[in-house]
Every structure is written in C-alpha cells, then in structure tokens.
C-alpha cells in the first residue's frame, strides 16, 4: 500500500461533558482511499467522523484531547480556520438536505459564497463538471432551474455530494449516505464513491457491513469508543484478528 496518510489521528479522546465517547484513538487515514468505519450504535464512529472536520465544535460541552492532523497540520490548533477546514473536508449526511432552491443554485452556492467564482460562465462550467462528477448531470441537465426538492431521494443525495464537491474539497466524510435509499440508488452512490476515490479521500460511516465491504479499502471497527481493529477491508472480512471484530461482523452480538 503506497497511499500516503492524509489524516493522522493521535491519542485522541473525546468527551461530551463528563461522558467519554472516544478512548485513545490512533489511526492514519490514507489519501485516495475509502475508509469505512463500522460498529454498533453508540460506539463512537460518528463522533470520530465528525471530529475530522470539527463538526463537534458546535455541541456544548464537547471536548477533544489529542491531535487530528490534516496533511500534518493540527486541525484543532488556534491558527486553523474552521471554515477553510470544512471546505477542505466536506460532509455528506444520512438524510439528504438540499437547499430549497434550484438544482443549479444548490451546486453554485458553495463556490459563490467562498468567492471562488466571479463570472456566470465560469459557474456554469463548475456546475456541469461537478454534476458530472456526482453522476447526476445526465439526469438533471434539462431541468437545472427546477427545485432540488423535485428530485428523488437518491438524486437528492447525489446532489448533496455534488454540492460538497463544488468547493473542491480534499476529503469527503459520509455519515450513512445510503441508508435511506433503495438498492438501485444505493448502488449508484456506491459506484460514485468508487469513482470519487480517484480524486478524494473518503471516510464513510455505515451500519451496512456489506456496504463497508463493497466500497472500502480499509475498515475500522469501533466498540465502546475504542478503535478495536483497523486493517485492509478484505482482511477484516475474511480473517479479522480481534475476536470482538469477528463476533460483530459475523452477527454474534450481545
């Protein structure tokens, strides 16, 4: 594996007030890899995901110890511009949340507010390029001015991916991106993830273990706030080392 490390997490603890949600997590997320995070509800995987672009900052009483580095730079340092960080590390949520505006404006919004674009013609180019990257262009090119709300659930989710891509991020965090979608839309999202990893580093949280197995290069298994095992996905799903991982992925819960 020659892929270099994009995000390094060192000795990280995370607290919601008095509750410790992450215990001494150490891991390297590789560039242009899909990294899947699995584990039962409440295991800390979503907390971990949100720690990667400081989404937890908004929660009162939330506190992080340790270091999270993006390209070697501590993202929790005072000199880190959080807005800039979230531009570089985009996020896709479980429930698609398009803005109540046109398809075009949903994609154009980010580049516009970030001041990336001045002229309308440039914006057109970005919108098309981004919608193509999100595998949505062919389905919406004739109705760009229509409301994003008129799209199907799967299309809305791909639009949200397009919106995240429009500001040219380096990392995409996905929190259960396909859990509310039918199998066809899910397959499209998974194929899209496969295409996107050529350009982006992707971290995905999923309860669907088959999905983790299908889309990811490396998988981390969280349990009770600890990263129990982190390894190549094919290793995790054929011969995991830790018995906790084994029990969880084979369905021996309790």
């Amino acid at each position: 594996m020659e892929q270099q490390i994009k995000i390094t997490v060192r000795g990280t603890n995370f607290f919601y007030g008095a509750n410790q949600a992450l215990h001494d997590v150490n891991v390297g997320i590789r560039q242009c890899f899909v990294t899947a995070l699995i584990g039962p509800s409440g295991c800390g995987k979503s907390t971990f995901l949100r720690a990667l672009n400081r989404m937890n900052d908004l929660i009162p009483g939330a506190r992080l110890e340790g270091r999270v580095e993006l390209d070697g730079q501590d993202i929790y340092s005072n000199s880190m511009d959080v807005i800039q960080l979230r531009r570089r590390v985009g996020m896709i949520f479980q429930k698609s949340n398009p803005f109540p505006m046109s398809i075009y404006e949903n994609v154009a919004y980010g580049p516009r507010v970030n001041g990336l674009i001045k002229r309308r013609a440039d914006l057109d180019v970005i919108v098309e390029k981004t919608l193509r990257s999100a595998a949505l262009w062919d389905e919406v090119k004739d109705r760009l001015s229509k409301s994003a709300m008129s799209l199907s659930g799967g299309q809305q989710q791909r639009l949200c991916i397009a919106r995240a891509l429009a500001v040219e991020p380096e990392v995409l965090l996905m929190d259960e991106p396909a859990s509310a979608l039918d199998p066809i839309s899910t397959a499209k999202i998974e194929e899209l993830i496969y295409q996107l990893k050529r350009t982006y580093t992707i971290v995905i949280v999923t309860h669907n273990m088959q999905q983790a197995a299908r889309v990811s290069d490396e998988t981390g298994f969280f349990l009770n706030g600890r990263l129990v095992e982190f390894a190549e996905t094919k290793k995790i799903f054929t011969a995991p080392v830790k018995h906790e991982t084994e029990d969880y992925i084979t369905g021996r819960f309790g």
Partner: protein
Amino acid sequence: MAGREHTSKHYEHQLRLLKDKLLLMSHQAEQMISDAMRALTERRPSLADEVISRDDTLDHLEVEIDTLCYEILALEQPVASDLRFIATALKIVRDIERIGDTAVNIAERARELIQEPELKKLISLPVMGQSAERILKNSLDAFVNSDADLAEKVIQEDDDIDAMYEQIFRELLTYMIEDTRNISRALKLIFIAKHLERVGDHSANIAEMVVFMVKGQDIRHGTRSDRG
C-alpha cells in the same frame, strides 16, 4: 465457526445443519475405505459389493452440502470465520466425495482379486491401509474440532504414505519380473496402493483447508501468506 452463537438463530441453525451433513458424509467415507480394505484382506465379496452400493448416498450428500452452501452464501452473506467455514465446506466436500470413489475402486479391485488365489500374504498393504484410514480420520477430526495443529500433523504424515506406496510398488514389481503370470494380480494390488496414496492426498487437502479455516492462512503449495 467461532465459539459463540449467532444472534440470528436461523443462521446458526443453517451452519449447524451444514456441519452435521459434513460429519455424516465424512463418517461414511471413512467407513467405506475401512470396509473396502476389509473386503480385500478378509476376502469378502459381499462387503465389497456393499461398499460399492454406498457410493450413491455419498454423492447425494455432496449435492445437498453444495446446495446448502450456496443458499447460505446467497442468503446470509457470511464473513470472516463463517465465510472460511463455508469455503472449506465447499472444497472438502469434493475431497470427501473423491475418497468415496476411491473406496469404490478399491472394492472393485478387491472383488476381482478375491476370485483368484492370493498372490502373496498381504502385509504392507494393510499397514498402508491403516495409515491412510488414520490420516483420513485425523483430517476429519481436525475439521470437526477446528484443530489446526492436528491438521499440520496430517500434512506431514502424508509423506509417510507416499513412501509406503513407493515401497509397495517396488515390492510388487519384483513379483511381476519373477513370473509374468503374477502381473495381473500384482497390478491390481499396485492400483489399490495408489488409491490409498490418493486417500492420503485428499486428507492432506482437507487438512490444508482446516488450517485456512482456523487461522485464515493459505498454506497450500508451500505458500504461507496471509489471506488478506
């Protein structure tokens, strides 16, 4: 299959059913080899016929086990130790079925040999038969008990059986050179020795899969790489 039970009772039941069928099939294959050799040494044609007739049951079990494996793969999507168990089942079922065929071949040669006077007192061949039966039994025990150490022992013992075959082959060759009238019977005995040697090979195959099943390591063809 790891020690703890699955939360899904149905899945647990399917895996147990598969294991039970494999146990039944391997027990029958062991018995067929042992009875085929007894038919030869005790000169009992009816026992030879019985061995031959039992092959159908084994063939049926092979198909049932294959079907069950495909169902579990499609419906339960097994991973990790469960996946390795199913992969092992699919492979060793072929070996067990071939061992049954081998027993039939031995029984057929035995039936022919019984009709003629004994070429010689059989000494090495029954010993080889016992060795083959033992490593077959050990390979299947290793599978049942997920015992990788026993499986590694089986793989080593297969070499002894290969050596026994060489020795018996040379011995029977001298009989053929001494008197051409011995050729037909000596050849049949050589065939039987060859069949027993194949039982050793199949047992070693089973043992290699057991090591993979238990440890997740592929040790076939001298490769000891992690399957990952």
